[in-house]
């Protein structure tokens, strides 16, 4: 019976830690840009190049993407 109590306390701690971790993941807007994201920006028109790209995620889902183009020299 004593063992069971210890196990249940351990389980509660683990669940609590998982909950906090999950919550922090949801709350923080994270950058979820992978190098592949670059290719999700439209191909630059002639005489332009893609200079910067960045993405915002909230809760693991992509919310917005920025593509910045400069004219070629």
């Amino acid at each position, binding site marked *: 019976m004593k063992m069971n109590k210890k196990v249940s306390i351990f389980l509660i701690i683990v669940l609590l830690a998982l909950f906090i971790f999950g919550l922090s993941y949801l709350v923080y*807007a994270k950058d979820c840009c992978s190098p592949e994201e670059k290719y999700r920006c439209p191909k630059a028109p002639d005489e332009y190049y893609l200079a910067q790209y960045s993405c915002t995620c909230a809760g693991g889902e992509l919310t917005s993407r920025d593509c*910045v183009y400069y004219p070629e*020299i």
Partner: protein
Amino acid sequence: MKKKKIIICLFLFLNFHFLPQIIKINQEEGVLQRDRENHITFYKFKKFQPDIHKIVLWDITKIIVHINKVFILDQRQSRIFVFDKGANYLYSIGRPGQGPGDLEYPIDFFISKEGNIYVINSMGKRIEVFSLNGNFQKRIKLNLPKEIFYSRPSCILVDPKQYFFIAYNLSSHLIDIYDFRGNYIKNILQRENPVIIPGENIGNSSQIGFFHNSNTLLHFNYFSGIFTMVSRMGKIEKIFSVSDKLHKKELQKLKKFIAEKRKIKKSGIRALTFRLWSNYCIDADDNIYVFLLLTKKSKKQKLFVFSPEGTFLYWTTIPYFKNTRINKIFCSEDDFIFVTSEQEIIFAKKRRIK
């Protein structure tokens, strides 16, 4: 006597509120274009080259010269590097991360007269405040209005009363005011074209700045090349731009490109930003300088100069920059600072005009 005073007050009040907006869009020729003797020229060009064994700058985002120190924000390294004017590295401010004092996609910074450095983090929508020597002081979380939840700050200005003026990468708001706690106060400039959610949008392309000798803010759209002068109360005072054939042609071409992309349905929000102009800088006399990033092959890049009233004065070129393009320009009290497309920093003095 009392009546007279009331009439004068009423006149001033009406004048302030109902002064017509001055619109000087597509100014064809500069009023001083033919008067070459009055054009600005630069001398004492000097490369600013930090010791590469100590510091390599990857992405020069903004430069401010403050009390003989040069503060350079490098967005990709998430740090502000501080040098003396001889390019000797002194120390750095911030580091990449999400904790207090850490920088996450720092996009702009501002140094107040009191000597505080305010760094705006685009991703985290927060401001980290440091002292001039780099000590972290506090973090201010910006509480953006719900309707622009998708927006990310892109520019910051701080006034002496500690109000923050914020511009965004993509938003229906162009300039918003926040208090010192980061609470939203009000919007002072709106975007004309609506933001489509979900879908493709043209980014706000905003740069904002203060004039030295007036209380007005200057918003610049580096896609359309249009300047908007707006009071801190939110009254649009002047709208102005220059007419350039090359820019006009490119603008039409790109608008067509974006319109085609818009037809394809997307699930997220995407901001497509085309930089056709450099950032602008304002000198001690409140004259405005901006480069057109577009150039015809074998032609030199044009530097456009406007008066503080928004009158197009003239365009000129800088012979020193032959085979390179200037992407950024910064004005300090004594110097002009140019950043080339190869991430070179060049300081120069301005030779004044008669």
